[in-house]
């Protein structure tokens, strides 16, 4: 029965979209539409959660739709239930946020119908249980989000972004199509049950996994298929960017898990090498590029790339353990990955909302034009600070928990029998640590330049705080980040059925009564006696911090005097002397620059005595453009130009073509046996 409820929710979204087409042009429509989407996503969220807590036994239904003879199958199990929770949490938050934010929309008809349809598409992907329905839903999701990316289509760069996005999406779908083709076999048994029943030979399975990596990876943003994210995510309206970045990438992760862990049967150990390598590279490259960005939304998009890399590291570990029949570590790694999925959806949506609030308040997306917003937008500043701390994996917030669990899984790595993995796992661990540290740097920069310091433009000076809907959405997400960090045990227990159903094992029960001091502390697996308790850490921090403050205020002094900035005795009134985004990351750029970046600098320094101002330009490119996509595009266009000659032949030449082909075929006949 539950799956039908899910389908009803999808239907609800589609219905809202239809209504939106009808009433979109009225001024009140946006609040109405977003309110309705909020309700539906809350319903879907509730029932997904309920199904997940109810141990998530699979529940199926099929209709005589789709491919004839196969029909359209839908299924709800623990995995899809969990992702339903993730997606509809993000969806609900985005809808709530948009009730306020949507008022600023210029052309509502370009957003309102597609937003609920987009949510519906993502939900449908999770419910689909045969290749055809899956791909239809998958591509429907891409299409609607593409339309949303083009909501502001008058800016040429947005049109370009939409184009690149849709082409990448098409590429991904085609690779998934090929993967399903392998799984379904020549006689086309597309239903997932029959695929589960069949056991492909290792080579075919490996090929399928690679194709799945291409397909799901291009949607999730694995390097080098990540190029569309930093273009498309900023182009869309901020609540949509939040969905694309925080939620849709999770649907891609779901697709990978569904195929790699559910449909593909037993993995082979070296698959995990590939997944781990790609995941680690993605994490590091993603965050390095995020550091280099000045546009806040592009920065966030690149940081999404990084987080997806972290998730795939977890998945790779899970594959490795599973291939070696080490169920418990596998469960740990998978749970960690899923936990990170949840976390990232929370704080990335939060951060995009914050970026949207700043964008509407100042009209600026470039960090270099902001500053000092903590004074003008105090509430936004608080929630964004929580988001930044969470994404930087700082205890006691949630980002740390999932990364800690992944580290725990990594520490089990050396028990793997294969030498390749033994050397790979620590390396991945080091890279993960690197990316975590760089994340902290990245968000210190982002928050520091955006909210701290002195305003760099009048627009930033005049900013005002976001409306109450947007704020409440952000505060709710922040609260979730907090709770998931303080009581991770609850989340892990809720996640348990997923690992149970996929791997036949689960992490030990975390939250057990009666209440003891050890309550709600994470115990990854029995043999590693490590543990972490966010609750107690928080208590410690709060107690010692407040105690110290009170002590000093009570027994020492609380006298405070305001005065001008000291700045080592040389205060400079110009706001341009503050550290900017580019200057903040200059050391990191210098350290990693030569290897990973494609930096173009131009310095124009007037000679002494000249009065004209000097100038320094810096552009950091994604080298994958220069070394991969650029050449490919050029190749296609060049061959198009070459072939285009054939449009201008004379009739006689065309006849010659026909004649030649005829003779060729005749020769074939003559030569045939």
């Amino acid at each position: 029965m539950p799956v039908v409820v899910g389908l009803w929710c999808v239907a609800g979204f589609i219905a809202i979209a239809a209504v939106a087409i009808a009433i979109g042009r009225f001024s009140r429509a946006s609040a109405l539409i977003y309110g309705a989407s909020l309700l539906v996503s809350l319903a879907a969220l509730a029932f997904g959660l309920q199904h997940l807590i109810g141990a998530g036994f699979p529940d199926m239904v099929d209709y005589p739709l789709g491919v004839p003879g196969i029909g359209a199958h839908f299924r709800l199990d623990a995995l899809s239930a969990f992702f339903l929770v993730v997606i509809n949490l993000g969806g609900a938050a985005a809808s709530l946020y948009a009730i306020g934010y949507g008022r600023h929309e210029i052309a509502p008809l370009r957003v309102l119908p597609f937003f609920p349809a987009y949510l519906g598409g993502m939900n449908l992907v999770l419910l689909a249980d045969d290749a055809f329905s899956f791909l239809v839903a998958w591509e429907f999701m891409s299409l609607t989000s593409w339309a949303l990316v083009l909501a502001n289509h008058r800016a040429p760069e947005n049109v370009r972004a939409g184009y690149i996005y849709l082409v990448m999406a098409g590429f991904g779908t085609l690779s998934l199509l090929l993967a399903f083709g392998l799984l379904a076999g020549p006689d086309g048994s597309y239903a997932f049950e029959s695929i589960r029943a069949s056991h492909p030979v290792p080579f075919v399975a490996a090929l399928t996994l690679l194709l799945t990596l291409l397909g799901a990876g291009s949607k999730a943003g694995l390097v080098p298929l990540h190029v569309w994210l930093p273009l498309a995510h900023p182009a869309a309206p901020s609540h949509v960017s939040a969905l694309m970045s925080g939620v849709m990438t999770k649907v891609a992760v779901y697709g990978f898990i569904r195929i790699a862990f559910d449909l593909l049967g037993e993995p082979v150990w070296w698959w995990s090498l590939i997944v781990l390598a790609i995941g680690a590279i993605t994490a590091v490259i993603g965050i390095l590029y995020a550091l280099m960005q000045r546009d806040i939304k592009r920065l966030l998009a690149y940081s999404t790339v990084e987080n997806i890399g972290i998730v795939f590291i977890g998945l790779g570990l899970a594959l490795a353990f599973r291939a070696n029949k080490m169920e418990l570590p596998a469960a740990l790694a998978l749970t960690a990955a899923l936990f990170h999925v949840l976390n990232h959806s929370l704080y990335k949506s939060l951060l995009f909302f914050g970026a949207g609030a700043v964008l509407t308040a100042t009209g600026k997306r470039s960090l270099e034009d902001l500053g000092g917003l903590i004074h003008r937008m105090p509430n936004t500043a608080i929630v964004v600070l929580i988001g930044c701390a969470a994404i930087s994996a700082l205890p006691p917030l949630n980002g740390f928990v999932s990364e800690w669990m992944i580290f725990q899984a990594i520490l089990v790595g050396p028990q793997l029998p294969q030498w390749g993995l033994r050397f790979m796992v620590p390396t991945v661990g080091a890279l993960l640590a690197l990316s975590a540290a760089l994340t902290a740097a990245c968000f210190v920069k982002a928050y520091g330049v955006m909210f701290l310091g002195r305003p760099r433009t009048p627009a930033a000076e005049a900013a005002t705080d976001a409306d109450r809907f947007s704020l409440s959405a952000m505060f709710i997400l922040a609260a979730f980040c907090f709770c998931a960090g303080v009581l991770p045990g609850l989340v892990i227990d809720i996640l348990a059925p997923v690992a149970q159903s996929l791997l036949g094992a689960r992490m030990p029960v975390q939250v057990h009564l009666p209440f003891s001091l050890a309550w709600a502390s994470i115990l990854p697996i029995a043999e590693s006696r490590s543990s972490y308790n966010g609750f107690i850490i928080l208590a410690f921090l709060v107690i010692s911090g407040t105690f110290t403050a009170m002590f000093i205020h009570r027994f020492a002094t609380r006298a405070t005097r305001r005065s001008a900035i000291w700045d080592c005795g040389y205060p400079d009134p110009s706001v341009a002397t503050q550290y900017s985004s580019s200057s903040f990351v200059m050391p990191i750029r210098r350290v990693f620059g030569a290897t990973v970046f494609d930096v173009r600098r131009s310095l124009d320094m007037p000679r002494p005595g000249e009065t004209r101002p000097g100038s320094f330009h810096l552009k950091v490119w994604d080298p994958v453009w220069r070394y991969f996509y650029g050449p490919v595009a050029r190749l296609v266009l060049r061959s198009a130009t070459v072939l285009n000659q054939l449009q201008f032949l004379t009739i006689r030449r065309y006849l010659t073509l026909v004649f030649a082909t005829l003779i060729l075929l005749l020769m074939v006949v003559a030569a045939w046996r």
Partner: protein
Amino acid sequence: MRALSFDIAHLLAGLMLVLSFLLLYQDRITAMLNVFAMQAVALSASVAWQAVIQDAPHLLVTAAIALVVKGIVIPTALHRIVRKLGIHREIEEVIGAGLTMLVGLGLVALSILLMLPVGEKVSILVREDLAFALAVILLGLLMMITRRNAVTQIVGFMSLENGLVLAASGAKGMPLVVEFSVAFSVLIAFIVFGVFVFRIRERFDSVDVSALDRFRGERGEQP
């Protein structure tokens, strides 16, 4: 009788093939038109002979059409066009006559090669006949693509079509042959008409392409 009938049919078909080669060889329009007329006559003769040996009287109609339309009407019409439109008397060749000849020989060889292994199910006469017909058709096509001059190409197409009729008449008891030959005559009439109306002079190559860019907006890079 069987042998004789066979020999005559063979002879006429062979004659048509030879005439096709002559067509390829010609380099002056008037002469070429005459050769074509001869081929048409040969065709009608062979069709008539088929009518006799298959005692299929309706083939005589076809023969008559071939004789009248292609032997007399169209050649004269083309003579007029050549004069009216002031088309050069010389024929522009794309590749030299000698080379064309060689290619033609190759085509003949190919068509024989194709027909030889055809099994016993098909009568020997039909087989030989088809070999010739195929050769004539291919030579006609070859002529169309190795000559730039409009009229020559029409002639090429028509000799191709002669080959068709030859094949059709050779096909024992094939229905609707007459209708087909009529239909083809109409088609050719269209072509001649088209040449005349659209003033397609020297070049049967499409009108100069560069002149068309402004209509098509097709040349050059995308912006």
